[in-house]
């Protein structure tokens, strides 16, 4: 869980360099994610139990045909909860990632394209928000403001845009100096036109890769906050919330309330990372090498 977007990219390069163990196809990641999305959509049809209905007559039943993932301490069906948890995780992950990358692109573009005072002010803002440890800043934000699924998305988005902003800024700086931008300026194109027609299209792929990798990280962050009891409100089925409640069960040797949500987090994050890696290879190859020169 520990790590940030930059590190994800680094590991991705690492993974790519690893000979003989390449994941050459986009398929595996894509397939699992589609499957997860399908599970999230069809949750009410796959499991007919209400994920939040407590049935105290059947607490902590081990997995059986009736309850394939068992039941938790309030007798709620774990399969239903895990399936509905997919909805929460994907929603939070994707929305927070889009928000973070949107903010990052916006601020990075402004800083990189206009330069000067705007650039130094915005970059000082990036430095400032980078200073408090991400987890502590997030915990402070979710404690001080009201806590629901949308404020969690907002909090994750607002604390994760800085790496994208730095990346986009340096890309915008280099694109700005290319001949096609120069000729557009010579032909009398305004800032808005150049940004929209020449710079943005060149950043689209990077933004797509960033959103994908950021989604994985946002899902981890949400599960971490919920696990601490500081994330998604406890009545909603989120994988982090389930693991929070499963802590006590684990000490008594009850494994099914922890295993299934835990597995789901790993599978989801792993497949999104794999997809992001493959997208990066295809859409933004050798970007680091370009940046170094």
């Amino acid at each position, binding site marked *: *869980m*520990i790590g940030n977007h930059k590190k994800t990219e680094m590991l991705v390069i690492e993974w790519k360099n690893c000979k003989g163990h390449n994941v050459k196809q986009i398929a595996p990641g894509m397939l699992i994610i589609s499957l997860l999305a399908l599970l999230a959509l069809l949750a009410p049809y796959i499991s007919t139990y209400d994920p939040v209905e407590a049935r105290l007559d059947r607490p902590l039943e081990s997995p059986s045909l009736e309850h394939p993932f068992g039941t938790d301490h309030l007798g709620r069906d774990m399969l239903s909860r895990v399936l509905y948890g997919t909805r929460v995780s994907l929603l939070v992950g994707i929305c927070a990632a889009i928000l973070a990358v949107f903010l990052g692109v916006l601020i990075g573009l402004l800083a990189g394209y206009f330069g000067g005072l705007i650039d130094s002010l915005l970059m000082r803002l990036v430095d400032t928000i*980078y200073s*408090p*440890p991400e987890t502590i800043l997030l915990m*402070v934000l979710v*404690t001080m*403001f009201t806590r629901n699924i949308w404020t969690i998305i907002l909090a994750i988005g607002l604390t994760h845009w800085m790496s994208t902003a730095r990346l986009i800024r340096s890309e915008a700086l280099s694109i700005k100096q290319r001949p096609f931008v120069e000729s557009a300026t010579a032909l009398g194109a305004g800032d808005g036109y150049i940004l929209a027609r020449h710079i943005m299209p060149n950043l689209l792929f990077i933004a797509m890769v960033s959103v994908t990798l950021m989604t994985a990280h946002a899902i981890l962050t949400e599960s971490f906050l919920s696990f*601490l009891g500081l994330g998604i409100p406890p009545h909603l089925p989120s994988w982090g919330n389930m693991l929070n409640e499963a802590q006590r069960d684990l000490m008594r040797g009850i494994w099914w309330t922890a295993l299934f949500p835990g597995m789901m987090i790993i599978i989801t994050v792993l497949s999104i990372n794999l997809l992001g890696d493959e997208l990066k290879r295809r859409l933004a190859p050798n970007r680091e090498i370009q940046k170094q020169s």
Partner: protein
Amino acid sequence: MDRSLASYILRRSLQIPPLMLGISILTFLIFYLSPVNPVVAYLGLVAVQKMPPEDVARVEEQLGLNQAAHVRYLAWLERILHGDWRFSHIKKRPVLDIILERFPATLLLTLTGYGLSAALAILLGLYSALRAGSRFDAILNSLNYMLYSTPTFLVALLAVLVFSVWLDWFPSSRMVSVNEPTAFLPNLADRIYHLMLPASILAISHLAVFSSYIRSSLQESLQEDYILTARSKGLDEMKIVLRHAFRNSLLPFITQVGLSIPLLIGGSVIVESIFAWPGIGKLTYDAALRADYMLLMGLTLFSSSIVILGNLMADVGCAMVDPRIKYR
């Protein structure tokens, strides 16, 4: 110490005050913009509920809450600079005292975790860079990738389950045993015993990032021309790797370690909460759960300062190892 290094340290240090100012503004703004009632934040909800309304109004007056935001910020900043970080109402003590008291425990845990992680990462990274493409390398990379996609708390839960509940090898909570003597030396063994599991988990959570960093930078170094020169001179391969390639790949690693300090403090929140380790991570968790806003503001300021100092130290460390940096 030579002059250029001193001037580099000075130039680098001058970046700190504006950054600290930025952080103080950020901290204040979060509190100012939040729907938290400042009187509740200062005195605690229970105390405010017991107070008659006139008293609440008087406290508001005394705290200057009806003044403009910038006046309040400056007054707050002045108090912070004077070391008055207000009272924590869950601990009933001054915020700064509590943080300073708890910090050594976090330092002990994180430094042990860091040291373990760096040492293991160097070993694994070295080995897999030298055996690039081998089965060991492939397995290590898959494991790293897997570990990277696993939340730290899950690793910690699994470790508690296996090593504390099933095998009963290590304690699952606290820093010392309940009935041990409290003097430092007599219970050193007990402390180490309690430290081992949480520190290992902290180490494992950074291992993926660190070891792949060593591996990729080492592989990069091994492609350089001076390695070719060294090989053509007929130098021993071990010497080439350790003396020539590894020393150069250590540099980005130091930077990486410095940049990971915020992540390490973040990781300590999880590990400390799960193991009831009495450091600032657990303190943050308690403060968040029981809505101790003054303590949270203090922790934001304090942890940011640690991160800034850590980054400074990493930069200075790099400049000492690499003479090129000083002249930038």
